[in-house]
Structures are given as C-alpha cells and as structure tokens.
C-alpha cells in the first residue's frame, strides 16, 4: 500500500494538484498526544521537497506556519515511536489546525482491519485507530469581521466518554454540541463578544472544564479537549481572527 501510494504520488499528484495561487496558507500544529512531553514533526512539500522540522510541547501548539500551497508529507515522532507518515493538501489562503492526538504508549502499527476500515470509510471513520497516535485536520479560516464568531469542540481526550460543551453568553446558555473521541461538534455561531465555556461528560451535570472565552467578530475558535488530570479536563484553545481571504 505504501509503495503504491508513493508511485501514485510521484506520477499523478504533481500534474493534478499543481497549485497556481501564491497566497500562503496558515497552519498550526497542536500536540495532544497523551504521555509524550513533546513531539517532533517534519513536514515536506511533496513537489518542491522543501522541509521544516519543529518540536511542540504537550498540550501546546506551534506558532502559525506560513506555507506555500502544496501537498505536504508529515512525519511525527513521539515518546512512544514514530507514526506512519501521512499527507495533507494545503491550499492558498486557508487556515488550518492539525491536531496530533492519541496515547503515546499505544501500539503504532495499524491492523489490516483498521486499514480496510479507513479505505472504505474515508474521513468519516475517525476512531479507526483506537487510541493509537493519529491526526485530524480542521479548517480554521476566520470569517469576515462583521460575521458571527464560531465555536467548536473536538474531543481528543483519551479514555473519556463523549463530551458535551455549552457556552454561556449574554442571552443564555447554548449547547455547542457533543463529540465522542476523535470527533468534533458542528460550529456554534454567536454575535456576543465574550462567553464562558463549560464542558461535561455527555449526560452528566459534572463540569470538568470551565473557561472564559473572548469572541471577536468573525473569529473561528476550536477547543481541543486534551485529557483529564485531577478530575479536570485540559482544554487547548486555537482561535483565529482577522480578515478572511475573500475580503
């Protein structure tokens, strides 16, 4: 499979996926790997071969990377080993957040069944790797400043049940949504400029995380549920605001 993919990439991708836009894309990498004090990531543009390497501490994200549009190949090393390299397309003018998550001590090699599920299921099967270290890209492009702000939550907290997020704003308490492990809620839109987030296990009244949140107009916020410690859920918040490419 790996060799076939390599042949495919070499033969087809450069022609099909040629990028014509010059505007850079913006990427942040988020380290949510449980049990790894830091991770090392190398990303290489598949057409030009240009590479970058960076280290990211646990429950942290790197500075925003300005990248030339291309298909990039990512190699991630964590305390428990190296995960199978993977690729993502990075298009001009888009903002992205790439979360690396999972349990550092889990076995890295996906089973044949997991590979088959991934092939047949596509992006809809998120938890196919169990708690193995895996990755998920999210679009983070901010909206126009006069548009409502959006808030989402992704659940990468190893071992927790589905999590439910609510937001308190000036006009009451609103559900953001429920996300099982590896999944994310849909966006909650609001014109309020600030709010307070509460996260609970789905179906429970026990608040495991609570944090205030500024919501600039048009901002795009993703809250990553990173893991439990001392009965509290760790949240890593990525917020992008500013003019969208279409402005």
């Amino acid at each position: 499979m790996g060799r076939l993919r390599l042949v495919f990439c070499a033969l087809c991708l450069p022609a099909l996926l040629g990028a014509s836009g010059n505007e850079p894309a913006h990427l942040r990498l988020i380290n949510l790997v449980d049990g790894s004090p830091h991770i090392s990531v190398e990303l290489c543009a598949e057409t030009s071969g240009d590479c970058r390497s960076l280290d990211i501490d646990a429950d942290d994200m790197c500075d925003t990377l300005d990248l030339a549009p291309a298909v990039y190949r990512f190699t991630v090393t964590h305390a428990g080993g190296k995960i199978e390299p993977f690729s993502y397309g990075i298009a001009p003018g888009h903002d992205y957040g790439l979360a690396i998550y999972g349990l550092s001590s889990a076995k890295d090699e996906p089973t044949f069944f997991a590979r088959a599920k991934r092939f047949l299921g596509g992006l809809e099967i998120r938890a196919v790797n169990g708690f193995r270290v895996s990755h998920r890209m999210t679009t983070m492009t901010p909206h126009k400043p006069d548009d409502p702000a959006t808030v989402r939550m992704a659940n990468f907290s190893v071992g927790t049940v589905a999590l439910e997020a609510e937001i308190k704003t000036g006009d009451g308490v609103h559900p953001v949504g429920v996300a099982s492990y590896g999944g994310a809620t849909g966006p909650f839109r609001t014109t309020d400029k600030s709010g307070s987030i509460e996260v609970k296990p789905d179906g429970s009244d026990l608040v495991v995380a609570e944090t205030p949140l500024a919501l600039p107009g048009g901002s795009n916020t993703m809250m990553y549920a990173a893991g439990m410690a001392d009965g509290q859920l760790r949240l890593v918040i990525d917020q992008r605001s500013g003019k969208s490419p279409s402005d």
Partner: protein
Amino acid sequence: MSGNSDSKLGPVRVWALAAGGMVGGGIYIALGVVISVAAQWAWLSFAISGVIAVISAWSYARLSNKYGKSGGAFEFLEDMDRRKLAGSLSWLLIMGYTLTISVYAYAFGHYVAYAFAGGEWMIRALAILIGVGLIGLNLLGVGKMTSVEVVIVTGNLAILVILAVWGLSQWNGVELVSGIEPRAPWASIVGAAAIFVSYEGFQLLTYEYDQIANPQKTFVPVLVSAAIFVVFVYIAVALGATMLAGALTVVEQKEIALSVAARNAAGTAGLVGMTIAAAFATAAAINSTLYSTAKLAERIADDGMLPSWFEHENRFGVPDRPVVLIGAMATFLAIIGSLSSLVEAASLVFLVTFMVVNIIAWREMETWRWIPAIAVVMSFVVGLVLVARLAVNAPVPLAVLAALSVFVFVARPAILARVHTEGGA
C-alpha cells in the same frame, strides 16, 4: 397525469423532467460524502456511477419501448412472467424511494435552516414542514405539476452550471485536497458506491411512459442524453464547488456544501440563490418521487402484489393511503437518520434495481447486449464495495436493509396470502 393538460409530454419536457429528477436532490447532499471517501477523485466517482446510470437509462428506455407501457422494472418482470420477482423488487423499490424522499427532506431542512442560521430544531421542523406540506398537496390532487417542475428544473440546472463554471474558472488543483489526505484512484470506486442514489431520478419517467409523445422514436435518445448531461453537470459541480470552498470545508459542512461554495463565490447573493435553488429542487424532487411512488404502490396493489389497502383513492383520485404512509415514513427517517447512512442505503437499493434491469436488457434485447452486460458487471463490483463499506461504516442500517430484503423476498408471499388482495400474489 393529474393536474396537467391533456397534451402528451414532448421530448424537451421529458428531457427536463429526466435531468431534473436526477439533479433534484442528489448533488446537494452527495458532494461532501463522496469527497470524504474519494478526495481528489470525487469527480471520477461521479463518472463511474454515471456510466452505470447512462447504460441503465438506455436499458430502461429500450425495455419500455419493447413492452410499450408504463411501469418500469415492475412491468418488465411481469411481462417476462416473473411475477414473484416483480413483486419483491417493487417492494424493494418502494423502500428505496422512501429513503430517497427522506434524503431530499433532510437536504431541504439543512439548506433552508443554514440560510436562516437555524439550529437542529429548525432543521427538523423544516423537514417535517416539507414532508407534511407535500403530503397535503398530493392529497389535494396537485401532486404532479409538470410545467412547474420544468421551470424549477431549468432554474436549478442554471444555478448549478453557473456555480460550476465560476468554480472552474478559479482552478487551483490543490483545492481538491485542501485540508484532506490525498487518496489513491481506486478510492473513486468506494465513492461511486456511496453516492449512486444521485442518479436514480430518471427512472420515474418510465412510470409516465404512456404520457410521452412518440416514445418509440424519442425516449431512448432523450433519456440517455439527459443522463449524460447530468453526469457532466455532477463532475463540473464536484470540481467547481471544491474550488470555491476547499475540500475540507465541503466535507466538514457536507449537509450544506453547495451553499458554502456559493457564499464563498458571491457572498449573500450566492447564498440566497443557492438556498432558493436547493429548496425548490429538493421540494420538487420530494413531490414527484412521492407522487410516482404512491402511484406505483397503487399499480402494484392492483396486480395483487401489495395488500388492496393501498388501492384506496380519495375524492381527488389520489392513492391517499400510500401517499400518507410513504410520506410519513420518509419524514420520520429524515428526522432521525444520519446523512451518510440514508444516502448509502438508498444507493444500494437502486444499484440492485439497476442491475436487475440491465440483466433483463441483456436477456431480452437482440442487439447491443454487451452494453447492459458492462453495467451488470460494474453494478456488481460497486455493489459489493458498498456492502463492504456499509458493513464497516454503518452496520445497523445495512442489517436493517438486509432484514427488510429477506422479509420482502421470503415473507411477502405469505403476508399477501393472509391479507385480502385482488389478483393474488
């Protein structure tokens, strides 16, 4: 064809109804599903499914000409003296149409609610509203409004083509994999399996065969050319909308992907235009599918393949019980179902149906038999892939579909023997 003039359908109207029947709801919800599976090869998925659909349209049209009457697959099998198979397949088809209506109601709810920034409650309320509203319209005997449908279809196709051309004019290949992992070309087969339901609409015309003017001369070229046109529209929209929104956005917001693309292209005006197109297209598709399915149920009951309860007509001459039962079931499924499982379960039903029709064409036609043979082989491969995909991705809907199929093929004759029927099972 109630609610319409006495004149027969000319080739232009047949073409518009066939193209509109396919585009009516499928593309609005299929795009995100197919990109999540096939990534940059989504266009190839539409092409693969399209080849099966075009050949199936050709087989349907030629068989309709051979048997010379309305009824589609049910009539073909009856005329071959395969009444049991005809009965079982027709029950399966009614289930497929019910799923299809639910997909359209689901799409209607999401597209309209998105324009009004509505949440889950509004989506469900809109799905119920459109379901109940169109059941009511059908019960009043205005279920088939051919001229209105032609206008809606034309407007819908125009907006989709504008969106596609706009997107293609801003071509940037990397948008096809923006934020997603590139996949190998053979993932396109999985994508083709997942969205096959997008092409099912043309066969509704075979239920109106006796209303078509000069069908022996026009039906084959009109139906086939409409199917080919739709294949190109789907491919263009798949590429164009992805250019405008980016692949990851289409996947993340698959329920309203075309509205997002239109908004990115033309702001609020684009959103309004696409919402109107989606609302009218899905409503028209629900309406025509509900009308035709109820008529099919009545026709099948008349032949003793469904309980005679389905034959009841109200004072407007409408088969009211099938309209209410099918409409209510579809609305319920739209409220509780997830997009992918609804789309894929319906796809499997129509893949099986088209394969059966192509087998009939292969057996009954004296010339060009290799053409339906190609579609049979392709349908079989794509169908197997879809079963495997459902088994790992949505085992519960697959199990329900399998149980219903067993019920249809095994228990149906026993049920019909126990209830009052006219004509016998």
